């Protein structure tokens, strides 16, 4: 069964450092997402990406965050200068269609990348 893969599974970094989280979405999917879950809290939407540009972003996704699809397979989330409060599990997801087109669309999530900022 096709799956979304994420690397690294766990990253520890110092406050102020740049972090890049990588994702390989399902190959025939066109829409890509990043969500995060701070420990003990709900899963929160960060950003959606389609056709090589951001489709939608939440208030959390400020100037410290950026996303990129550098080649035909990877989808990355960069945090320029990490803060303590960025510590969370970051989930990448992909879908065949965007939610704005069809609420019926189902996201396939990766296993997540745990980011710990010290």
């Amino acid at each position, binding site marked *: 069964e096709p799956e979304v893969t994420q690397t690294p599974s766990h990253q520890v970094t110092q406050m102020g450092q740049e972090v890049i989280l990588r994702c390989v979405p399902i190959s025939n999917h066109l829409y890509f997402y990043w969500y995060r879950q701070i420990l003990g809290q709900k*899963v929160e939407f960060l950003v959606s990406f389609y056709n090589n540009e951001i489709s939608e972003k939440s208030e959390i996704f400020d100037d410290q965050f950026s996303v990129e699809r550098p080649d035909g397979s990877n989808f990355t989330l960069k945090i320029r200068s990490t803060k303590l409060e960025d510590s969370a599990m970051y989930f990448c997801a992909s879908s065949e269609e*965007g939610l*704005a087109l*069809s609420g019926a669309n189902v996201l*396939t999530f990766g296993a*997540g990348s745990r980011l710990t900022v010290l």
Partner: protein
Amino acid sequence: DQQVKQNSPSLSVQEGRISILNCDYTNSMFDYFLWYKKYPAEGPTFLISISSIKDKNEDGRFTVFLNKSAKHLSLHIVPSQPGDSAVYFCAASALGSGGGADGLTFGKGTHLIIQP
């Protein structure tokens, strides 16, 4: 602002009995609802969904009920099995509403524990 609320952080049910997980929402623009299941060290996986034009959707042991007037939905699992032990997230989306329409809004999750 919790637009999707799962008020029970955990629920313990005996194997073979019915598990009922509840979810309330406040945003009347939501028109599609999904349940995701999450095991430790894994990402959420899709379980079942329902459109706002329906009040029930069934898939095997899983049934989702939607009460639009009460802005309430529930997931029924019957009979409950040990493998059902997981965290269950309720999620909602608003088709074409703009402002986050591409993102699912999740509840905090309910940890379901199936006891043998």
